[in-house]
């Protein structure tokens, strides 16, 4: 390893010493307390910001109709299955009537019997009227004969009494007829009630729609309020989107929405906020927006998970910086500026923020000023910084 040439030898020694010195300089410059904070800088530029809100939700039907009995009972038959289209008024299911059919026969017989009783009372009245008329004319004739003293007073009185009795009997027959008619009405009403009860066990669809669920089968016993079938209107599907309260500023009815269903990622479906629920979710701290589809995508199913992006009004020519540059120190938003190679904090007022990572600076910054976006460690006032294009190696 001994070099003979003095020039070569001193050259090699010098080179080695230089390399070591350079290494030492690199260590001092890049590590330790003298090292500068690596930062990237971006200029505040005027651009159009399109802020938006983001939430996730599930596909739901606007109205769901639960079809079920109003009293406990057993399911007799279910006529439709999930997916069947049904019309308003169509018979969907029937509950077991148990003895209702027999009661129908019984009440009908009772009504008929009452009607016949009324007819009999009618006949009795006709007879009583006839008797009354005969007794009346007899009494008048005897009264005439008495005036000419052909009959005794007793006989005339007896005829008068017969006439009065016949009138009373006629009144009695009239009342009996009225009672029989009332009885007929009662029996008929009983029968009509039984018919209604029977019809009530036949469950019909209240709307045109599609059967979404078949929840009970014939033979199962249900209590009042349980559902046999669920019918929805397939044209009323919408997305119940949940949006974080903290980022829900500007949420309103009529905002246009981009909906991506989890079942078909990469496909954006247009929609619109149709309703913002008055009552939000206090536990999850979310507001609920109902987003209707412009046209319901084929294959959308109730319960599908959806990502919803709501487009707010664009902010034209807004002074914008990357969101990563906005820091909060002591409750005050601001940006780190470069001042003669050192970092300085400057408070700013932040306006709209976009999902793509740009924030509007309302005041505190002028166009063209550079702000520190990324830093290799948290910045403090007066830190010496070195600007580089990127702090991480670009993705291969």
């Amino acid at each position, binding site marked *: 390893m001994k070099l003979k040439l003095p020039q070569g030898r001193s050259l090699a020694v010098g080179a080695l010493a230089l390399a070591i010195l350079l290494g030492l300089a690199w260590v001092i410059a890049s590590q330790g307390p003298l090292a500068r904070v690596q930062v990237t800088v971006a200029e505040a530029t005027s651009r159009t910001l399109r802020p938006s809100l983001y939430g996730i939700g599930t596909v739901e039907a606007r109205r769901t109709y639960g079809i079920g009995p109003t009293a406990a009972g057993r399911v007799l038959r279910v006529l439709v299955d999930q997916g069947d289209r049904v019309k308003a008024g169509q018979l969907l299911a029937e509950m077991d009537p148990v003895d209702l059919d027999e009661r129908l026969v019984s009440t009908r017989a009772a009504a008929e019997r009452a009607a016949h009783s009324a007819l009999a009372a009618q006949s009795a009245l006709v007879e009583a009227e006839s008797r009354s008329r005969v007794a009346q004319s007899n009494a008048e004739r005897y009264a005439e004969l008495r005036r000419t003293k052909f009959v005794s007073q007793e006989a005339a009185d007896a005829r008068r009494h017969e006439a009065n009795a016949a009138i009373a009997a006629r009144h009695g027959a009239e009342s009996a007829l009225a009672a029989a008619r009332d009885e007929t009405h009662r029996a008929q009403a009983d029968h009509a009630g039984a018919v209604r009860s029977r019809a009530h066990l036949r469950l019909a669809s209240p709307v045109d729609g599609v059967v979404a669920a078949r929840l009970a089968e014939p033979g199962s016993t249900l209590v009042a309020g349980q559902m046999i079938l669920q019918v929805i209107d397939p044209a009323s599907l919408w997305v119940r989107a949940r949006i974080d309260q903290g980022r829900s500023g500007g949420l309103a009815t009529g905002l246009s929405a981009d909906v991506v269903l989890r079942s078909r990622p990469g496909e954006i479906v247009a929609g619109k906020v149709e309703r913002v629920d008055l009552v939000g979710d206090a536990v999850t701290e979310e507001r609920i927006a109902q987003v209707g589809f412009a046209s319901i995508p084929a294959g959308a199913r109730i319960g599908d998970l959806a990502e919803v992006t709501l487009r707010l009004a664009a902010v034209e020519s807004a002074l914008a910086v*990357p969101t990563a540059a906005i820091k909060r120190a002591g409750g005050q938003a601001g940006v780190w500026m470069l001042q003669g190679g050192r970092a300085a904090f400057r408070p700013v007022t932040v306006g709209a923020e976009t999902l793509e990572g740009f924030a509007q600076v309302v005041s505190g910054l002028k166009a063209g000023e550079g702000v520190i976006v990324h830093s290799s460690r948290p910045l403090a006032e007066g830190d010496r910084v070195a600007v580089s294009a990127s702090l991480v190696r670009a993705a291969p």
Partner: protein
Amino acid sequence: MINLAGRDILNGWGKFAFTGVGLGLLIGVTLSMAGIYRGMVEDATVLIDGSGADLWVVQQGTLGPYAEPSSLRDDVVRSIAGLPGVAGAGNVAYLTMQVSHGTGEARVMLVGFEHGRPGEPDHLVAGRPVTRGHYEAVADEKSGLKVGERVRIRRHDYEVVGLTRRMVSASGDPMLFVPLKDAQEVQFLKDNDTLVNERARTAANPAFNRPGVPGLLEAVQASQAQSRQVNSVLVRLAPGADADTVAENIRRWKRLQAYTKAQMEEILVAKLIATSSRQIAMFLVILSVVSAAIVAFIIYTLTVNKVREIAVLKLIGATNATIGGMILQQALGLGLIGFVVGRIVAGLWAPIFPKYVLLIPGDAARGFAAVMVICALASVVAIRAALKVDPAEAIGG
């Protein structure tokens, strides 16, 4: 007067330089070991600083959230945010897990944070902060993730939108920040098979599936699938508020455990990483002793190899001081080269280590002093040997 040491070194500079470089590599290893120990402690403390909190509120009677599991209801944060002296409070959920992405797998600590509350990553080195309420993530660059990459966590794909630096768990796993609601779901929601089996189990339980109570089963099943838990509430104090007072207030009236920054540091450094850091420290001590011994041997051997030259020097009338000075200067020179080379190589290979290696100037200064002292002591032994050399050896042999 010529510098004897310099002339001697130039005479055999190749050998001297290589000895110096070899010594440097050894010193580099020792410095790196010190760096590994410092890095370990630093990982624990950076977790505390990086979270941006002044107080940690956790389940009563636990050392959570990092050293022990802790579980709180996520509405606890509201009652804490209203306490005097509290400027802000945020829920956080932590979960260490393996995630897979395009090019491979990474072990990460999943952190669920709330937008604008303590626990959010405070600085980025690339990309942008999380702007959507779901399915976006900010990753530590050590995870190997890149901006724009999609990473699968349980049921959903998350897009990495930003990168941080030095945001790691106490065990050095890089952090992956996701919105709190997603983290809660990841942490507490079971996989689909378990859910289906659990539903069947509940349905088979006559207590929950009573024929006379419609809707009970559905209600029970709905209550099983929701997650309302977090691991900790991070509290930021109002300016001028006393951390101990607020912590005492929370402990006494909210029946929760609260730790201040100093207590949390104590938990992490003295309890969580105590054994492993002592292990490294022990090894560091042994390595330092061995390095010192090797340095001493090298200097001694270098001197003993020059017995003939020293004898010649004596023969031509060099004083003991001259010879001693020469040996001392050479030893210190060797130590200097060794230290510089060691510091440089330690700095070069530190980033390659899978866990963080922190080379602090204090350690370097202490190392430099130790190297110089050891070199000086070793040279004393060598000088004593040199002074005993008989000048006759120069001509005899």
